[in-house]
């Protein structure tokens, strides 16, 4: 490892740091449950109005089903940005800007992002 680190130099260090960050950013089971609750709550995230989510009843079909999120959003930050304000990328998007319009607090956006990312 030392040899390898030396050979690859800063790149590997950065890589190691990144892995460390990703690991530390792993949401706990309790956080995921909290995120799910906000996502399903009609007065909060209300994601089911438009999206199919496994375990949710009576989902709408305006948005795409929320499955395989890690392959659709390899970068979790982009998923969070989409939840925070989908109109930043597409001004005509029908999706409510959950963060920008303070439908959810920043903490709630984090929790919902963790949960959706886990799908």
């Amino acid at each position: 490892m030392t040899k390898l680190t030396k050979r690859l130099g800063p790149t590997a260090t950065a890589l190691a740091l990144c892995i460390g960050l990703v690991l530390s950013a792993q949401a706990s089971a309790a956080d995921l449950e909290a995120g799910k609750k906000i996502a399903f709550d009609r007065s909060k995230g209300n994601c089911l109005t438009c999206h199919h989510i496994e375990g949710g009843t009576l989902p709408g079909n305006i948005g795409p089903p929320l499955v395989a999120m890690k392959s659709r959003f390899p970068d979790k930050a982009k998923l969070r940005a989409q939840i925070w304000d989908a109109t930043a990328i597409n001004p005509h998007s029908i999706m409510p800007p959950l963060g920008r319009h303070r439908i959810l607090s920043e903490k709630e956006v984090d929790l919902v992002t963790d949960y959706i990312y886990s799908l």
Partner: protein
Amino acid sequence: MKKILTLLLSAGLVATATQALSSPKEDLEKFQTYYEQRFPGIQLDDFGNGPYALDASKRLQWESMEEFPPYEDYIDKGREIWETPFRNGKSFASCFGKDPSKVRVKYPHWDKASSQVVTLEGDINKCLKDNGEKPFGWKKGKIAHLGAFLGYEARGQKINVVIPDDPKALEAYEEGKHFYYAKRGQLNLACADCHIQYPGHRVRGQLLSTGLGQTTHFPVFRAKWSKAAANGDGMGTLHRRYGGCNKQVRARPFKAQSRQYRNLEFFHTYMSNGLAINAPGYRE
């Protein structure tokens, strides 16, 4: 040189701005063609049946409900209101003419003298006031019952809103059009987002209707309103629905019969020109 350039530039800007405004006639054609292409096979009048035109199972449920429609009693109440004389001996016929089947199709219309859009509800209450009677509430109850009767009598007649070539009328039309397309409220939703971009899609279990045909069946009997009313009266006016829609997107609703809603009604009803009046309707 600089002056000429500025002049040319501003002339260009003005030209662009003018071009951006399409005429109501062009808007109407585009609006209706859009839905006809998006839902091929649906007859123009059928768009007035909202979600029931778009989904076979919902249509079946609706058709069986229409055998004993819950709005029927309110048509009768409306007829009674129409026929009952005011204290001065006159009746609504003194304002609207004797034939109740010829009233609904005149609304909404542009009134040149007052430079504003006049609605059926507006004229109902004007008639009451002019005759020394107390006006009705704007959103439900008697005003909706009378509207239901007048709509029922006019069933089958074609919506025919006229946008006169008068700058003020066009301004009112443009304001209504802008209202329909503008995002609003905490949820940042425009009428157009749901009813132009996503008709036929579901929000939870509800099917979104097309913008085309949305006004033909008003006043409407809504099961949701009926459930919430102590006496089960589910009738409501178009502006009651506008207010409900605005609240649902977490926007502050405008008042029923406000300029904003009257202008919206002007644009919104004009977009359904040529469709048959099918009021009163039933909706979930």
